[in-house]
């Protein structure tokens, strides 16, 4: 059996606004559009993924928050309706998705062997979180690949951002090992924004783009610093600066997704592809992809 490999790593923010703006048949809410910079960026990345041969998407989400270890989806199918607890007016999405349970269990076993506390989630009534649904919908609207969701253990709050870096990196390494041994070709997804201070009021028409802007300039400057380092292939430095970035911008990086993904990819020193940056209700969001294949890596934006 050929060695499995990570064929791409995507930083894929999950504001439900983006699905809302797209009006897919699965979502009950109706919009007049909005946030095109991100949506068009997502469409371009989704087209790239269509041209990559892969078996499964493994996604790390900050909206499945676990305090007792890291949990993995452990049943082959989940079908239900995901209603965003914060933006239920925008996101009520009927999903029907497949899970690669074999890969999920293999990653769980590898993580356990590394001393990480783990748990398989096998309750059929469990509702898959809206971060998973949003990022996966935008990256693969056809839902024709199985996924694995990994929960975000709350290390940042419970201990410190530094502990989160150690734990998420170790988890990334374990997942990479399991993927290699599985023989599968896998797309990794870190589902989150960068700066994450929201406005606490919403425009009467949420997609009114005349009202959309970053929460404050400091958040913007920090986000740009991170994006610049990604472009320059300085993924190790992104992680080094992350505790301060997370604190200064209340960044959603606190959940550990990007650390996990870059850790699994061995902290790549090649440039990330940048597909777009835009604010959503004040938060900063970049879509980025690390393509380890020198032949297919592009300079997108």
């Amino acid at each position, binding site marked *: 059996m050929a060695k499995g490999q990570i064929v791409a790593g995507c930083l894929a923010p999950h504001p439900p606004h983006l699905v809302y703006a797209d009006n897919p048949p699965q979502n009950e809410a109706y919009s007049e559009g909005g946030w095109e910079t991100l949506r068009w960026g997502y469409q371009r990345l989704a087209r790239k993924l269509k041209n990559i041969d892969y078996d499964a998407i493994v996604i790390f989400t900050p909206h499945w928050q676990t305090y*007792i270890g890291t949990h993995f989806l452990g049943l082959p199918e989940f079908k239900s*309706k995901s209603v965003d*607890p*914060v933006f*239920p007016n925008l996101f009520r999405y009927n999903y029907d998705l497949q899970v690669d349970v074999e890969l999920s269990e293999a990653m769980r076993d590898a993580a356990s062997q590394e001393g990480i506390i783990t*748990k398989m989630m*096998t*309750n059929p009534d469990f509702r898959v979180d809206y971060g998973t649904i949003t990022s996966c919908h935008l990256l693969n609207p056809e839902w024709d690949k199985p996924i694995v969701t990994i929960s975000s253990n709350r290390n940042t*709050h419970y201990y410190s951002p530094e502990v989160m870096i150690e734990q998420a990196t170790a988890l990334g390494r374990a997942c990479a090992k399991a993927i290699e041994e599985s023989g599968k070709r896998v797309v990794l997804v870190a589902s989150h924004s960068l700066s994450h201070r929201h406005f606490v009021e919403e425009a009467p028409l949420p997609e009114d783009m005349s009202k959309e802007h970053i929460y404050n300039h400091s958040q913007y400057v920090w986000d740009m610093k991170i994006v610049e380092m990604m472009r320059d292939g300085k993924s190790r430095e992104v992680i080094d600066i992350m505790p301060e970035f997370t604190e200064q911008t209340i960044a959603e990086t606190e959940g550990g997704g990007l650390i996990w993904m870059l850790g699994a990819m061995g902290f790549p020193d090649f440039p990330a592809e940048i597909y777009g940056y835009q604010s959503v209700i004040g938060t900063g969001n970049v879509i980025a992809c690390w393509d380890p294949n020198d032949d297919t890596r592009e300079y997108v934006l």
Partner: protein
Amino acid sequence: MSETNEPEILFGIYCPPHPQPLLSPEASEGYSKLRAAYDECRKRIEESEADIILVYSTTWPSIIGHQIQALEKAIWTHVDDDFHYLGSMPYEFHMDTEFAHSMKENCEKRGLEARTVEYEGFPIDTGSVVALQLLNPDNRIPSCILSSNMYSNRSETIVLGKAVRDTLAQQNKKAVVVVVSSLSNRMFTEHIDPKEDRIHSQKDDDWNRKILEFFDDGRLEDLSQLSRDIHGQIRVQKVVAYKPAWWLAATMGQHNNYDGEVLAYEALHGSGGAVITLTPSTGSVGDKEFDEDDVEFYRGDRNVLDKGMLE
């Protein structure tokens, strides 16, 4: 309106959010004591003349202001993110939609951003599900659930409580108010044998017991004034502040004239789980000035930084 134009709050309940008392009460002596305390509260609610059960849940965070559950019949099967292996929680809750809509208006009159949520399948949080399922299993009394805004601090939370008072007085409804929150909220980060459950640390236990003394003495406003210290000492810093005592005091009345009763205090995976009742009475403990300002209206961020800007 009641004669005094003051709302009639029959009693308050403080209870923990974790699902063990609902799903696995027999797994440990502690969990079954918590369950018995919930059952006692249920009985007292049944024997009371309450028109509404009002829940403020720390496990329902919101961002766009304060969300108010308004769906007439909220029906779903909930599963907890961590304790999914303990089982599913099917529920059907009947909301007091009339209360919910007026509550939104009264929040806005006091300067708060607020909205009702009325969506089939809305994910009601574990804490609210556990509390309502145990306290009001047959929907004898309609209820309403309020979210806890992630960014809100003291003034917003106090004003939110006052908006509850406005609404109850307007509708002349007798209420039982419920706060769903742990005391110390640090859990063990590994799976444990429930029989070996204990409070995470001695320090957490010491603080919890001190807080319980205050509750037992009915010193609710004193607890409200202590909230920032409590947050710093025994709360994992997930949100900006420990808000339950602020909300409970603002809703029930900002004083120390209560009969408090601690029905149970046990560990829930390391966190401090207590079931407590507070009943308005006469006679106050202590007689002193409080440090924190009272606040009637929320006027938004103070924009301190902007005021210091050079032109």
